[in-house]
């Protein structure tokens, strides 16, 4: 018997450390329980090597970045020398010099890595003068506030947005001393492609990108005697809120959380998981109907508002594949605004619905025009987990000592199926728990469907349900979603359901959750939610008798007219960049027939430039300069029917060069009788 060869080693601060496939020295050093400071290293992202804080001294090689050096047998590495200490200090001092050091008024204070590193390295004076001129804070996004004065140019946000979400809404612009992380053309974050997932803020080591705060608006409503304020709490909040009060990630704080909200002045506290149970029933039936009637498949889930905006921007032709179900947040909001005014005798405008979410995109979702009816929004304010913790602290509540209280009925009642919505794979599992009983007519004895659980960003699983096998795609991270959506766009996707969540691990990894540097955070929170499910009495949405009652008393038939009015929605085509059009004719177009050719992404892919080309030729050949002016426009938001050409304000959908020419000739003949 041969002995198993011992792994090769290298020396870190005099200790021999085995190399076991670590990608870089930093990973290896961390395994020896040394937490080298760094801003720009994230294990999920590519190595950037910009912050120069994880530098080490390697014998024979000098000072190197640990993150960008491969572990090699025999290396002699030192993590602390006088020279390294000096360099690290100067690096941080230089960063601090140009950083707006208004820590006391910064919402990242206490979770700021720059603050933490400065403290750890004992920086007690900044010897350099700032050379940056103050730049304006960007508040154009409903989800994320961007303060360029606090940016340290580590590029974490840029890499997350392009590498994990596949978007690239922000990037480095300008050069040298003027370098800044900016959305395209220096526009506001709210004006472009940003899908509001907020992960840029989650990875930002400073206060340059932070979730937008709505605390003041909520306090105002709470102290206003004319208002009745109602809360709903998403599943993922309960297993993370405790982290900000010294508890372990994944530990449920449900009772204290409800008690705290009551003490803050919320009249009723409902559970978004109740609406998740509703979603399961509506969405499962929508799916089964599509499956049996050869409807549009794969069915994409629609709970994640970041994904919905992503689909609207990049995959307009797949919008019919999106479930028409509203997200649980909006379902609960719609029900509350429908039912409570009558029940409580309060005017609709005096009923304030506040949702507590792990998510920044929910702030955007609540403000979508589809979700306001006669000027009344279904959800008025969205607070993140972080904001709720702030409010609890501000009120001085001793969170851990609060007597646990329970959710208000009926909309505080849920099954485990509604709770696991917060995990990637959770929606799929909840739908399968419902669909399998519905299809087979037999009781599902063990509700756990482990096949759909997991950490990978893209999972394809097959689950037998009765006589058929359902094929599911489960993704988190929108770059993965893009992979599957591209396949669906080209018609080579044989999946039945595709569950999409934008954030790593699903909602438990949302950008509204407490900022954590614990590498196991996702695992712990995921387990926390499954444990909550395990400890509950009911695990299937169809067992939620309050949901059944809700159908009987208010909604009527599943998927029926009233259910559709309250629980379903529609989607819109969306341009990527705030729009502008270029006039291609020669000026003064007042008297002319105005022809607009869309050259936005989708129309471009469908050949709009060919149409534009042909039309310009036509104008030249037939000498129509006097009569026609041709413009290139950057999106009519009619993408699903592209390419679009508008002639004198009338759209010609699915346009061809011939159709456009005919429309122009017809319009000219109508104009000149």
């Amino acid at each position, binding site marked *: 018997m041969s002995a198993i060869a011992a792994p090769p080693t290298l020396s870190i601060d005099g200790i021999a450390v085995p190399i076991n496939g670590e990608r870089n020295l930093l990973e290896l050093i961390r395994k020896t329980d040394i937490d080298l400071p760094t801003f720009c290293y994230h294990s999920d992202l590519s190595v950037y090597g910009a912050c120069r804080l994880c530098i080490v001294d390697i014998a024979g090689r000098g000072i190197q970045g640990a993150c960008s050096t491969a572990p090699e047998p025999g290396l002699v590495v030192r993590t602390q020398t006088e020279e390294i200490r000096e360099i690290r200090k100067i690096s941080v001092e230089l960063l601090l010099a140009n950083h707006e050091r208004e820590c006391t008024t910064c919402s990242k204070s206490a979770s700021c890595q720059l603050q933490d590193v400065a403290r750890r390295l004992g920086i007690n004076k900044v010897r350099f003068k700032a050379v940056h001129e103050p730049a304006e804070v960007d508040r154009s996004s409903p989800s994320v506030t961007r303060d360029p004065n606090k940016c340290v140019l580590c590029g974490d946000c840029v890499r997350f947005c392009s590498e994990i979400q596949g978007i690239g809404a922000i990037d480095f612009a*300008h050069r040298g001393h003027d370098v800044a992380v900016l959305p395209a053309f220096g526009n506001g974050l709210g004006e472009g492609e940003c899908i509001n997932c907020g992960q840029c803020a989650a990875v930002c080591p400073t206060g340059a990108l932070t979730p937008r705060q709505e605390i003041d608006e909520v306090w105002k409503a709470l102290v206003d005697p004319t208002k009745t304020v109602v809360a709903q709490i998403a599943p993922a909040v309960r297993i993370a809120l405790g982290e900000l009060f010294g508890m372990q990630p994944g530990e449920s704080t449900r009772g204290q959380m409800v008690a705290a909200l009551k003490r803050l002045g919320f009249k009723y506290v409902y559970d978004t998981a109740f609406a998740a149970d509703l979603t399961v029933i509506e969405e499962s039936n929508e799916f089964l109907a599509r499956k049996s009637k050869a409807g549009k498949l794969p069915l994409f889930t629609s709970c994640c508002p970041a994904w919905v905006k992503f689909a609207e921007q990049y995959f307009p032709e797949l919008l019919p594949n999106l479930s028409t179900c509203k997200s649980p947040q909006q379902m609960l909001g719609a029900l509350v605004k429908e039912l409570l005014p009558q029940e409580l005798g309060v005017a609709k405008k005096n009923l304030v619905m506040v949702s507590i979410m792990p998510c920044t995109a929910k702030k955007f979702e609540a403000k979508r025009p589809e979700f306001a009816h006669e000027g009344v929004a279904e959800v008025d304010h969205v607070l993140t987990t972080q904001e709720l913790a702030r409010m609890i602290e501000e009120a001085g509540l001793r969170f851990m000592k609060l007597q646990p209280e329970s959710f208000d009925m009926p909309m505080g009642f849920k099954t485990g199926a509604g709770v696991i919505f917060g995990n990637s794979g959770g929606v799929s599992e909840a739908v399968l728990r419902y669909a399998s009983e519905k299809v087979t007519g037999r009781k599902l004895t063990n509700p756990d469907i482990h096949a759909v659980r997991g950490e990978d960003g893209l999972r394809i699983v097959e689950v037998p349900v009765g006589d058929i096998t359902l094929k599911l795609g489960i993704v988190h991270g929108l770059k993965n979603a893009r992979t599957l959506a591209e396949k669906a766009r080209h018609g080579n996707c044989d999946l039945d359901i595709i569950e999409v969540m934008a954030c790593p691990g699903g909602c438990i990894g949302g950008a509204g959750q407490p900022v954590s540097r614990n590498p196991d955070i996702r695992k712990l929170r995921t387990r926390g939610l499954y444990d909550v499910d395990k400890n509950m009495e009911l695990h299937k949405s169809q067992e939620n008798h309050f949901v059944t009652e809700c159908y009987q008393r208010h909604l009527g038939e599943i998927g029926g007219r009233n259910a559709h009015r309250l629980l379903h929605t529609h989607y819109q085509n969306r341009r990527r960049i705030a729009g502008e059009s270029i006039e291609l004719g020669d000026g003064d177009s007042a008297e002319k027939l105005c022809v607009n050719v869309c050259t936005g992404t989708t129309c471009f892919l469908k050949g709009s430039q060919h149409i*534009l080309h042909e039309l310009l030729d036509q104008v030249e050949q037939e000498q129509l300069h006097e009569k026609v002016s041709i413009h290139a426009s950057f999106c009519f938001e009619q993408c699903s029917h592209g390419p679009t050409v508008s002639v004198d304000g009338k759209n010609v959908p699915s346009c061809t060069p011939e159709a456009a020419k005919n429309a122009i000739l017809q319009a000219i003949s109508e104009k000149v009788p």
Partner: protein
Amino acid sequence: MRSKSDPECNGRKFVKIFTILEKYERNPSRLVPILQAVQEEYRYLPREVLTYVATALNISPARVFGVATFYSHFATEPRGKHVIRLCNGTACHVKDSIPILEVIRKRLKLEGKKITTDDMMFTVETVACLGACGLAPVVVVNEDVHGEMTPANGLELVEAIIAQELS
């Protein structure tokens, strides 16, 4: 916002972008030569055109904007009819290029970050080095290189263009 009847934005030129993109096979790694060719047509890089280029190359507009703003050769704002580039590389700087810049900017009423005159006649910018250090200080007016300049003959160059434009 809308770029109104800008004579530089006529249809032929826009169509030219298709040709440019085809020439470079819509290859994102050829972004810089594509932008150079586009700027050749438009004299600057209009936002709409950058968005279009980004779409065609399947990269994000923010990245294209990043590249366009990295190189000082690229302009993201419309430039004047006459572009005056004054070298402020080391050689030109030590040979007093700044006073030349100052008199030209003063004559054209340009201040602070404003580099283009209101009538869109002149754009005045500095460049890091034109590689003509032997002629320092150097001023380039459109395509013509003028060496061993002084504030006085810098001003003369400007006056000559103004006179020519008025005639």
